């Protein structure tokens, strides 16, 4: 075989076959025992390690019939050396909400992938999909057919709704302020067409976190971040608070001292929280899960626009609806999403994420277009510059009347 691995040797990669952390090299080697694709993948990777450069060509468009997304085409740029990875496409399979599995369904996926692909996977991709790593174009359709028969479907890719994801929420967390799994599943089902058939200026991601701890990092990587929160007072079990104190937790310093709102007081006996000032950051609850709980009037804060830096610089999502009740059929949030898509699809430039779009047209104009009233909750602070596009003014003659638009 080629330089990079004379007679299949991979001296560089072999060094990663040891060490305390589970080795991806061992995984590839293990699959290579059954699948020649993986043998060539190893070889090509060894070559990359020798030359300090990747050997994949810029992806071509491949996919399954009737879908615009879900498959990432990939071809080696050294097919002569590694013919088995001439095609090495990945399929994105929409995972079950919060990544819960029966071993049965997992085995089913393994069996399908053993028949049609490399046998390698990512559990999971950054967006949350099951990534089936490496197959040939002609295998895509058969794989898809078997997967759908078993109840699995493809995830998103390209300029469509991307596979929504959610935190473990009510399934295993005491702090979930709404049903993250159910919302995630519901949105995914409601927007199947938008997910499989790219029709937007660019990708659109939903991520559902049950509380402000944001265990799916929604604020950093979702065009729509749905973060659970509450409106009323934090529930306090004073006795349990005392217990924490007795067990040696320094409540004054470590809890109150870290409260960003400086709204807590601990006199050694009772913990007092000024809930009007509390910013619902979760810290005190995190520190004393047995004593404190989010309030009872629960819902979610809807935020828009986070994304990676390409091309205007990274963005965090920002508040668009400070508090929304989250109950089936989730009509309010679905309507909001569709109003946003209408405006964005109409006026957004190609490859302009919704967050970038808002910056370009201006939040005020955007709000008018999606029919949401401006609110001080949407800003960290009002504008600092005096460059205001005043729209109202008087015409000659109407001094005494109201202003025109």
């Amino acid at each position, binding site marked *: 075989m080629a330089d990079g691995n004379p007679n299949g040797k991979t001296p560089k990669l072999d060094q990663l076959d040891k060490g305390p952390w589970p080795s991806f090299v061992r995984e590839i080697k293990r699959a290579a025992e059954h699948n020649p694709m993986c043998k060539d993948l190893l070889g090509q990777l060894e070559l990359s390690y020798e030359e300090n450069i990747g050997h994949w060509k810029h992806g071509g468009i491949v996919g399954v019939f009737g879908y615009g997304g879900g498959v990432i085409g990939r071809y080696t740029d050294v097919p002569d050396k590694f013919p088995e990875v001439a095609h090495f496409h990945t399929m994105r399979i929409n995972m079950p*909400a919060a990544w819960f599995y029966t071993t049965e369904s997992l085995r089913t996926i393994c069996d399908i992938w053993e028949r049609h692909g490399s046998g390698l996977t990512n559990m999971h991709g950054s967006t949350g999909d099951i990534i089936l790593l490496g197959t040939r174009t002609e295998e895509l359709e058969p794989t898809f057919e078997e997967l759908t028969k078993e109840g699995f479907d493809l995830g998103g890719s390209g300029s469509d709704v991307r596979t929504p994801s959610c935190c473990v929420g009510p399934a295993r967390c005491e702090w979930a302020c709404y049903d993250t799994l159910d919302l995630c599943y519901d949105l995914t089902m409601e927007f199947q067409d938008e997910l499989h058939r790219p029709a937007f200026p660019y990708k659109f991601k939903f991520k559902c976190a049950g509380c402000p701890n944001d265990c799916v990092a929604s604020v950093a990587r979702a065009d729509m971040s749905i973060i659970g929160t509450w409106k009323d007072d934090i529930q306090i079990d004073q006795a349990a608070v005392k217990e924490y104190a007795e067990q040696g937790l320094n409540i004054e310093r470590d809890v109150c001292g870290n409260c960003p709102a400086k709204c807590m007081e601990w006199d050694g006996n009772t913990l007092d929280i000024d809930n009007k000032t509390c910013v619902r950051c979760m810290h005190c609850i995190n520190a004393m899960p047995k004593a404190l709980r989010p309030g009872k009037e629960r819902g979610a804060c809807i935020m828009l626009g986070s994304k990676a830096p390409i091309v205007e610089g990274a963005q965090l999502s920002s508040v668009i609806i400070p508090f929304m009740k989250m109950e089936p059929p989730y009509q309010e949030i679905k309507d909001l999403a569709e109003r946003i898509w209408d405006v964005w699809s109409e006026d957004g430039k190609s490859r302009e994420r919704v967050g970038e779009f808002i910056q370009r047209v201006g939040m005020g104009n955007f709000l008018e277009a999606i029919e949401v009233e401006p609110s001080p909750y949407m800003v960290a602070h009002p504008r600092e510059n005096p460059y205001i596009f005043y729209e109202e003014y008087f015409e000659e003659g109407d001094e005494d009347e109201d202003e025109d638009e």
Partner: protein
Amino acid sequence: MSPTERLTDIGPPHYQKHLPPIVKENYGKWLYHEIPRPGVLVHTAESGDKLYSVRAGSPRLMSIYTIRDICDLADKYCDGYLRFTSRNNIEFLLTDESKINPLIEELEKMDFPVGGVGNTISNIVHTQGWIHCHSAATDASGVVKNVMDALCDKFKSTDLPGKLRIALACCLNMCGAVHCSDIAILGIHRRPPKVDHTRVPSICEIPTVVSACPTAAIRPEQVDGKQSVSVNEDLCMFCANCYTVCPAMTLNDPLNDGVSIWVGGKVSNARHEPMFSKLAVPFLPNNPPMWPEVVETVTKIVEVWAANARKYERMGEWIERIGWPRFFELTGIEFQKEHIDDFKYAGLSFKRSAHLRF
């Protein structure tokens, strides 16, 4: 066959099909959780039921053969249920406390480290790298493997000041969404795109390419009769957005591609609002298979933080308290021109007050 006969748009399986009975029964009725030992969570429900979660580290890139091994364990200890976390760890869900230790022993025999729970270092969110992406400026899996080898003991412990989240992205597209991590490892290019004038005309849309450049470095240009583009190298900051839309403008460069290190980001709202990561080290070489420079730098930063941060203080919160001059002093990292922002919002990152620590 015709699409009508095919199943499409069925979406993912309903989550309830995949929830273990104890979760179904106590769904939304959990009261509190505890961490009895590293890598283990106990969640107690209103009903009094207790759910034990054992978390194991995963390479994320897994063969179906290993997945089947994991399924065997889940069948044996968890009645056939398991889950993965948002950071790609594996969680075994037990109802029988006595099975925890045997499970952990088996996992360790199979070389799966148990940990990542509580105030600790969890798995590294990462991306494809040389395994599967055309855009990668470094490998993902290899760097992650080396860094986690070095930090594995910290994954297994729970005695760090707070959570420490590391993420890696192999190019500026940042699929790992590393931009809000306590420590981010980011693959970077340092040379402008090499324009292949023979291919640009045929495979790229010139207007798209030109408008793809955030710094307007790309101009349309006639090259021996054909429409192509030229790049003003002084304006290029190597973002590779042009390459994403035009395969004939590759930035990959074995000599100059490498890794940058970023620190102090977070996404949770706990205490401090979410923060972006900030540049710590502009460039470290790609040095496979071990990437010693990267491992050393990351380890050093982790150790300085672990030794100096107060309880609950995430990396960024700690640095905010001690100030950036002290961070550079303690880590021994040199502050350079590259650290000072010169993109759109540059001025806002300047020190606009006389709040100084000497």
